[in-house]
């Protein structure tokens, strides 16, 4: 439930990892969108005021477009991102991870009415908190979800060191743990590195700085560096 990553198997036989966006960034994106739409409406009103009462009718049409068509147009032409979502790094995708198509987009934006119901998005908030993919009701009915587009910080590089052969054969999980330690070593304090390395004294046969250096050497060897 806490893990918002959703794995989706693609036809290529691998899994995509989509990180569902929770209510907070979505509310922020909605606020950006609301401001953008208000500014657009005001900008449209300036030339329309020249037309007198007829301009009022055109202003109504502009309001209609901003209220209903804005979302669908943005999602179709801006790659599943309204301007607010783009600013916050969110994107609407179909449940299978493909870019959103027009019918789900229309559905989810028509049903926005229900999500917005008591006060400001009360139903939507409840729904995003309950659903494991943080979908609002409109998303559930349309078969869409909102995901983060920004990648999380990728793993750091293993610091280069002269490779050392492993003193005894290790299982794949143990090898992966060694490489993970080496990748994260740069983010840890020296004391913590040594503390962790000391746990592996039976493997390395030394403590503290020498132990850390040995572990880095094993990791380099596992990666196939000279």
């Amino acid at each position: 439930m806490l893990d918002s990553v959703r794995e989706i198997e693609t036809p290529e036989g691998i899994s995509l990892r989509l990180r569902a966006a929770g209510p907070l960034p979505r509310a922020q994106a909605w606020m950006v969108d609301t401001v953008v739409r208000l500014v657009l409406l005001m900008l449209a009103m300036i030339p329309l005021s020249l037309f007198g009462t007829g301009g009022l009718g055109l202003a109504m049409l502009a309001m209609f477009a901003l209220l209903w068509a804005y979302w669908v147009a943005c999602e179709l032409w801006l790659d599943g991102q309204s301007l607010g979502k783009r600013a916050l790094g969110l994107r609407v995708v179909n449940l299978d991870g493909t870019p959103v198509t027009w019918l789900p987009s229309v559905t989810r934006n028509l049903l926005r009415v229900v999500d917005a119901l008591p006060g400001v998005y009360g139903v939507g908030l409840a729904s995003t908190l309950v659903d494991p993919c943080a979908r609002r009701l409109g998303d559930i009915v349309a078969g869409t979800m909102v995901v983060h587009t920004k990648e999380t910080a990728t793993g750091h590089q293993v610091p280069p060191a002269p490779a050392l052969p492993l003193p005894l054969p290790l299982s794949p999980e143990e090898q992966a743990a060694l490489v993970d330690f080496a990748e994260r070593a740069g983010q840890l304090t020296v004391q913590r590195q040594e503390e962790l390395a000391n746990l592996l004294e039976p493997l390395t046969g030394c403590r503290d700085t020498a132990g850390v250096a040995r572990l880095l050497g094993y990791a380099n060897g596992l990666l196939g560096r000279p």
Partner: protein
Amino acid sequence: MKQERFVALHAREWDSLQAWLGELDRQPKRALRHELALEFPAAYRRVCHHLALARGRGYSHEVTDRLQSLVQRGHRVLYRPPPPRWHRAAAFLVADFPRLVRAQWRCMALAAALFYVPALALLVWLQLHPEFAHTLFSSARLAQFERMYDPANPQLGRSSGTNLQMFGYYVFNNVSIAFRTFASGLLFGVGAIYVLGANGIVIGGVAGHLEAIGYGGPFWRFVATHSAFELTAMVIAGGAGLQLGLTLLAPGRRRRGPALVEAGWIGAKLALGAFAMLVVAACIEAYWSSQAGLPDALRFGVAALVWLLVLVWLGFGGRAGRHGA
């Protein structure tokens, strides 16, 4: 194979794919003319293969994360929807939409009953008991209705405003109501039932009251034509909402989730059709219905024609002809 050797073998291919995807974001036209555009599906599948290998062999995050993000971007490009084709919109309005309405005829009939039964009942009731109108509406609203349809009013059906202004108002107001009617159907159908019934009561009440006080002439002359599109679109939007609510309550022999998604898509199509109908209705209402100088024969003749057109369109549009589809 050790990770370093794997990276050394394939890094150039990953880099070129990444560069092409980056260019596609910045200058799509130029990127699509590039020779890599033809290569792309094969290159993407090779990278998928590399990712599967890297995961299977337990390579470090440095490699798997890089491939993962590359695959994610490639997936978005390879599986993007085709650009919308506008002739599909025409085909939808002529054939698919009427077919969809007929396929959902039970919900449509229910919606029509929910709307027309209270409307007609009130229309008749108010002829027998005219004072009942004061129970339904406040005096201010009754006065407003009477002003709009006063036989002495030079413009039919409105107290002020130009054609364009009223067109914008009708589109904004009516389409918003139709969309809300559909969406509120998700609340177990209650919203749609309420909107349909309430509209039936208001419209029946207004018609009955105006008929009873002798203002019926201008009222019927005003509403006769555009009501064909407007009322039918309202019933369809309500039926779409009912369909959604009923699917939520009783999905039948399907799981509730997939059944809801399907019902949502059907409802969205119906709502889009209702939107088109309401735009037509707003045109007629703003530019034709409000003309006071037209002779009655022409006005009611056109109204009958439009009603016939709507019913034939919804009843027979998209039906396979004698030669079959």
